[in-house]
């Protein structure tokens, strides 16, 4: 799964550099993106979770150190604030891993599972470890694009490596925790994205909602759930992230529009047909029905909450022009292809 996500991240980096507004230093964006890609490739190649955590640690410190705080009397996110949540994630993951490795009572295995799930949730900035963010921060410094860029591959790597060390008796608890946290984040993210005051915050919550569905997919631990999670991760990297980058200009200038393009973008963000989010949602509902039908009911109700938030986010993108319009067209086209023909992509990932 990881190689596909790495490729998707590379495409998104190219797109982000292409559509960046003229005042943005494209070279800086590209260089930092390449460093991120190199780190992701190293994580993918790492033979153990310990090495993945060490690579992640290096990337986090590099990102936090190179990011320039917003000018002002008191920066909202200084160096210490940038480090706090990611380092907590690494410490939790490492503690969870240590508990899984030691010989002892079964309760330690459960503690290990709690550590791994909590660490993963903290790494991707979900409830209850939401990262502090500043709407005025640059793309390079903000945690939102970084989590959407690196997070999918990190999640896939951590979960695949963690399943190798988690014993079969604890795997049910592992799945249940992923589903529970996934539902909470899905509901919280979609409602907050709809009701929150600022558009930048609304985008941030919309990422949380998507991640909630991803966690539910991974928690189902059956082929449909895994396939749904993978498509959702790709749609975060190749859909929501580039659209978020495209919308930043309009959010800064406070120029929401109500044109057909905004409606199409809203449809993509809501996961409606024919975009990539649709087959993912169908697979997720099918998997949940196989496992426990009331879960499918809760998921279906939760998915309806995407609609008002997606309409709001679609409007916030404004009217893309020039390079941005080309970028938006590419994003829409890629998501349509993924939505109509997900099978070749899933086969490539071995699902």
């Amino acid at each position, binding site marked *: 799964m990881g190689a596909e996500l790495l490729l998707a991240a590379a495409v998104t980096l190219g797109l982000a550099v292409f559509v960046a507004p003229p005042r943005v*230093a494209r070279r800086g964006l590209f260089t930092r993106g390449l460093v991120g890609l190199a780190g992701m490739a190293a994580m993918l190649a790492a033979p153990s979770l310990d090495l993945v955590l060490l690579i992640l640690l290096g990337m986090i410190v590099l990102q936090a150190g190179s990011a320039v705080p917003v000018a002002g009397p008191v920066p909202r996110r200084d160096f210490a604030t940038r480090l*706090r949540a990611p380092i*907590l994630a690494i410490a939790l993951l490492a503690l969870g891993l240590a508990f899984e490795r030691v010989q002892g009572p079964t309760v330690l295995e459960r503690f290990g599972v709690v550590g791994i799930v909590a660490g993963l949730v903290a790494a991707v900035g979900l409830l209850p470890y939401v990262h502090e963010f500043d709407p005025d921060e640059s793309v390079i410094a903000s945690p939102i694009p970084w989590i959407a860029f690196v997070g999918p591959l990190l999640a896939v790597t951590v979960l695949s490596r963690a399943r190798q060390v988690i014993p079969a008796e604890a795997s049910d608890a592992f799945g249940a925790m992923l589903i529970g946290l996934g539902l909470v984040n899905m509901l919280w993210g979609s409602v907050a994205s709809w009701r929150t005051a600022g558009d930048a915050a609304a985008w941030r919550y919309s990422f949380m909602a998507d991640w909630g569905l991803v966690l539910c997919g991974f928690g189902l631990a059956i082929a449909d759930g895994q396939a749904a999670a993978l498509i959702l991760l790709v749609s975060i990297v190749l859909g929501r992230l580039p659209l978020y980058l495209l919308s930043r200009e309009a959010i800064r200038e406070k120029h929401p529009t109500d044109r057909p393009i905004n409606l199409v973008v809203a449809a993509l963000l809501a996961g409606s047909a024919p975009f990539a989010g649709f087959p993912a949602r169908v697979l997720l509902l099918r998997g949940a029905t196989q496992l426990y039908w009331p879960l499918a009911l809760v998921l279906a109700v939760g998915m309806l909450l995407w609609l008002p938030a997606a309409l709001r986010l679609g409007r916030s993108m404004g009217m893309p022009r020039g390079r941005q319009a080309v970028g938006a067209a590419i994003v829409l086209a890629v998501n349509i292809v993924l939505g109509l023909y997900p099978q070749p992509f899933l086969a490539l990932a071995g699902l």
Partner: protein
Amino acid sequence: MFVAAALLAWLGASLIVLSDGRRGLALGLAVLTVGFAVLTWPSGAVLGASAVAAGGAIASVQCWRSGPATWGIMPAGSTPRVVLCVGSGVLALWVAASVTTGPGAPLRFAVLVVLGLMGVRVLAGRETAVLLAAIACLALALAVAPGVAAASAGPVPDIAGGLVAAGVVVLRPAGRAKADKLGG
């Protein structure tokens, strides 16, 4: 010897939790490095132990040379930190020696206590030097952690951990600037 090394690792981590000055942090890093280098020996052999020792030594020297030249060990209001160090040590000792079974109790103790203390230090700290020293220790703990499971984890995690520990303390966070120039 391994019990003494584990206690050194705890002592080093406690010094980092209790210190605000660069000298205290550097001393804590050095003590912790000695403990971890000894504990790495069974799983990482000479190469692994050397990598951990070199990484920790570079981090310690760099820490000694940067920032105001003070020890800053146990400044006023440090009682909660002392309680944290003692409490986490007792808890980790109980888990490593009593709750869990099998060989390698000193390594289990050292890994658990250092991961916990450094996680808390980063969460509670604000000064760059403190944060970087804590992260270097965290990297060393991650490097030796595979030894908890297998005696033949190999030297690769140790080398990676040593590199990260040596690399992070060199970093100096960027200053403030206008966001417009860097990514809109």
